[in-house]
């Protein structure tokens, strides 16, 4: 009897074990969760533009191809700076500030893991108020004779009065004579290196006179930029100002300004104010926010003081445009702007439109624009003459990592540029070429007149080409980046 019960128990036990084991058959053991084991971040210095952060990410338990998403956070706005299969990443912030970093990893089974936000890494401005600056002779793009020396003198005086150290004129003239420099519209790498090595210059201020009208109602427009003497000269600040004698006429026209030099002095003062704000690291910039899914303005407290955004009307927007669906505006891009072609427009209008677009592009933190002098140097050294805009071969040279490494090449044509007294009109087209994909990813055509939409007593009329072109360029870049 006991034997029978024992045998029965054993049989039931074996059966239960077999049932249990059979239930486990075909099931895979539970996977360990995907985990970001370590994120090593090494700061290679503390200066923007010159130095970088080196990231390396170690992931555990991932299956298949891993996809890394690198995020940075500054002023409470997180933005994506890279997404792809690379576990090691080198990144240089464009703007000064306190940055935190984070990595999100996804594997082929769509599992996701992320690191926590890192410690804060502080990056100071690429140039400081204590550096030595050279003020280059002013480039005249106005098609009129203008007192360039006087305007430069005003600029130098204002900079010195603001506490900046400016290279003495004699030393600069000696240097320019020895280095045989005639082109003052840009800074090439060799000159930048020589300036840094021989004279200890931290940056060069390049100014272009866009408009100069003495007759009738005076009109002055200036475009100015600061180029940092890095290994590859880079634009650290750019701004422009356009003033008319009748901007603030007031009661009985008492506020009308008749002397263009007075306008130039005001323009210089405003430009220096804008430059100082950048040197103090308070200039606003646009960032693509991951959380909000749209562009956001960083440091918006300076937004109004610096006259950051022009009044963009419907007529200023491109009349036709195309943006490739595969283009991701949130990614980081290096942009080369090649000189715009003049089609029946006035002399140097191509340079003016290109500078306005450079100014607008510079405001986006995910975009780095090459200094025009660097582009000119590359085009000259490769004997590239572009009669109809850049070809694939030209784009390949600019996009080559061993030469320039541009991700996007912007070019265009100017069909009309009327900045005389009377009618104001601008007509231009832009084209952006993707260096990596070798395809056109953006085209636009913009045209507008100063009196578009003006019907009664010139209310709302835009008198200067500068004030017309600025919102037009802003609208183009906004549509490209939005």
């Amino acid at each position, binding site marked *: 009897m006991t034997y029978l019960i024992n045998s029965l128990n054993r049989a039931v036990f074996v059966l239960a074990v077999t049932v249990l084991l059979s239930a486990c058959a075909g099931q895979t053991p539970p996977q360990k969760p995907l985990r970001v084991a370590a994120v090593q971040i090494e700061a290679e210095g503390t200066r923007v533009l010159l130095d970088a952060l080196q990231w390396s990410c170690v992931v555990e338990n991932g299956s298949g191809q891993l996809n890394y998403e690198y995020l940075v956070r500054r002023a409470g706005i997180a933005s994506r700076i890279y997404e792809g299969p690379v576990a090691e990443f080198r990144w240089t912030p464009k703007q000064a500030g306190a940055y935190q970093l984070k990595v999100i990893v996804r594997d082929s089974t769509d599992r996701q893991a992320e690191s926590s936000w890192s410690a804060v890494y502080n990056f100071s401005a690429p140039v400081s108020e204590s550096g030595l600056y050279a003020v280059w002779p002013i480039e005249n793009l106005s098609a009129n004779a203008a007192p360039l020396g006087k305007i430069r003198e005003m600029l130098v005086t204002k900079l010195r009065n603001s506490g900046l150290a400016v290279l003495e004129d004699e030393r600069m003239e000696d240097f320019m004579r020895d280095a045989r420099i005639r082109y003052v519209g840009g800074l090439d790498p060799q000159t930048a290196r020589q300036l840094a090595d021989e004279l200890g210059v931290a940056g060069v201020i390049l100014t272009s006179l866009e408009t100069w009208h003495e007759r009738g109602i005076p009109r002055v427009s200036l475009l100015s930029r600061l180029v940092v003497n890095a290994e590859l000269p880079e634009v650290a600040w750019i701004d422009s100002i356009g003033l008319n004698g009748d901007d603030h006429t007031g009661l009985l026209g008492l506020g009308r300004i008749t002397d263009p030099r007075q306008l130039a002095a005001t323009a210089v003062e405003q430009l220096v104010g804008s430059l100082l704000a950048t040197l103090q690291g308070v200039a606003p910039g646009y960032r693509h926010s991951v959380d909000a899914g749209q562009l956001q303005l960083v440091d918006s407290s300076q937004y109004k003081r610096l006259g950051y955004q022009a009044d963009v009307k419907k007529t200023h927007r491109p009349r036709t445009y*195309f943006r490739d669906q595969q283009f991701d505006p949130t990614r980081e891009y290096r942009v080369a702007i090649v000189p715009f072609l003049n*089609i*029946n427009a006035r002399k140097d209008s191509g340079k003016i439109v290109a500078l306005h677009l450079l100014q607008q592009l510079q405001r986006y933190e995910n975009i780095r624009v090459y200094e025009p002098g660097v582009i000119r140097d590359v085009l000259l050294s490769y004997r590239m003459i572009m009669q109809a805009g850049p*070809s694939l*071969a030209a784009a390949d040279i600019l996009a080559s990592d061993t030469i320039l490494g541009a991700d996007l090449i912007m070019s265009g044509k100017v069909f009309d540029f009327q900045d005389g007294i009377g009618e104001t009109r601008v007509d231009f087209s832009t*084209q952006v070429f993707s260096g990596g994909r070798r395809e056109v990813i953006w085209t636009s055509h913009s045209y507008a007149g100063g009196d578009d939409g003006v019907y009664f007593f010139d209310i709302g009329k835009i008198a200067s080409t500068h004030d017309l072109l600025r919102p037009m360029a802003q609208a183009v870049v906004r549509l490209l980046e939005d």
Partner: protein
Amino acid sequence: MKWRKLFRTDILICGLLLMLAGCTISSTKVPDYTNAQMDFSAVRTVAVLPFQNLSADDQAAERVRDAFMGMLLATEAIYVLPPGEVNRGMNRANMRIPWAPTTEEITKLREILEVDAVLTGVLREYGSIRSGSAEANLVSLSLQMIETQTGSTVWSASSTKGGVTLADRMLGSGGRPMNDVTTQVINDLLDQLFE
């Protein structure tokens, strides 16, 4: 008796309207040509060659070409090679008259640029026309698509827009701006191409 009076007034108004309508410069529609054998979905990449300029404005053809290239690209149906690349291809193919290419030149261009078709064009009118005291802008453009495999024309169309309208005569306006008229012409041609 009353209805007769009314009838006479109606006829008078209709007659007046017809006379006024006759004063407008009508944009006569020229029928386009489309090769029925051609599979247009196979055309992925095109090169737009410089247009022949028959207008008084030296740079008008370049303006219209640039606008056309941008708008064709914006359709996202066809990829348009950038003008710099087209220029390089033309130089390498030793093309002398870009608006009237030979079959050999088109075949060469296909090898160099790897395009499925080329578009040639003639800008016939670009400027303002006057009719009485009224003045308005007018653009007239004709286009041809040449398939690069055989060098045969597979599509041809033309469009004319602008001109003095009834409103211009009545209100004395100067017509639409030239860029707007150009856009109208290109839109019309693109409609014909994709219809």
